[in-house]
């Protein structure tokens, strides 16, 4: 093994015999552009709605729920697609999230949530992952569109003004603390199961 590596190390170190420096530079440059473009295009493809809803787990559960919410249909027609909220926009964070998401391929292959029953059983855990992620990055994906600095409180309802000018302005809370379940239905949240103060509501029997 060591000898193998050594041999290739020597090949790599040796100057090129057959190819000119100009050829290597140009091929390297063009090859780099093609590789980078293909890589990013491929990754952007995994950010499309068509890709996300290509699996019935997404299409029939969470995507179906999204459709009646304001993030999908509203008066002005601006809308968020899956990746707008669930994938960070900055490149390094995006790569990190995509690597994490490779676990979801495992889940798809082994049918972790391939029936509505399995999905319901796992829903709280899956939601908790997202809540924890939003809590940790200060609701970054919300703030990609909803920028606190440009909120006009005078155009908000009184109760929204009260909440935003205290809890949000004081950085005591972040978006997800209050705005859970705005794009999907909430599962039953037992006491203490949410990262913030949505109390475990004891639904009466």
């Amino acid at each position, binding site marked *: 093994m060591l000898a193998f590596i050594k041999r290739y190390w020597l090949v790599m170190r040796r100057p090129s015999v057959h190819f000119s420096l100009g050829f290597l530079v140009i091929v390297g440059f063009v090859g780099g552009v093609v590789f980078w473009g293909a890589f990013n295009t491929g990754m952007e493809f995994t950010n499309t709605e068509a890709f996300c809803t290509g699996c019935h787990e997404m299409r029939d559960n969470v995507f179906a729920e999204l459709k009646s919410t*304001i993030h999908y249909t509203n008066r002005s027609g601006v809308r968020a697609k899956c990746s707008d909220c669930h994938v960070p926009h900055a490149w390094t964070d995006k790569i990190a999230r995509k690597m994490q998401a490779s676990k979801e391929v495992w889940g798809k292959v082994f049918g972790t949530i391939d029936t509505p029953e399995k999905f319901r059983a796992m829903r709280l855990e899956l939601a908790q992952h997202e809540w924890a992620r939003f809590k940790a990055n200060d609701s970054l994906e919300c703030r990609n569109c909803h920028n606190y600095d440009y909120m006009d409180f005078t155009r908000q309802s009184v109760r929204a003004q009260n*909440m935003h000018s205290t809890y949000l302005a004081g950085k005591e809370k972040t978006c997800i603390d209050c705005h859970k*379940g705005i794009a999907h*239905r*909430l599962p039953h949240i037992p006491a203490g199961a949410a990262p913030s103060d949505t*109390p475990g509501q*004891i*639904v*009466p029997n």
Partner: protein
Amino acid sequence: MQNRSVMFYVGAWLVATCLATWALVAAAAPTVVTDAARGPVPVMETTKPPRLGNAINDDTRRPRNHETQPPTIPHRIDGYQVDKNFNRCLDCHARGKTDFSQAVPVSKTHYIDRNGKVLEQISTRRYFCNQCHVAQDAAAPLVDNTFKGDGPASAVPARKP
């Protein structure tokens, strides 16, 4: 032979009666079936529904018209999830949450079951808020009415939230 002849006359009479009835029905103008609840639009046609309004969202508490009236909701509740998993109303209005949310707490009576037992959480029979409490549209009344209510003097005053 005698029997058969009688049968023949009976049969002929039946056929004639049927034909006459059909002729009468066909001659009459086709009746248009309407339903009072749908207005003058015939049952077989689609009604033109009125425009959807936006519920009033001014967060100003309205006085009640009589003592036992469930207070109306002074804000929009579009898309609020109220089901066996989650109750979005209680997310702010539950008595445990009002310190944080500054919302009007749910009445204490809503924590009592039908046997008079005081519960830790909202009573089952009070769980579906929208059965009694509704948001309001700024719409003109569809029909005139002369309901006066108890009047402002006895109207339940708005509590400080």
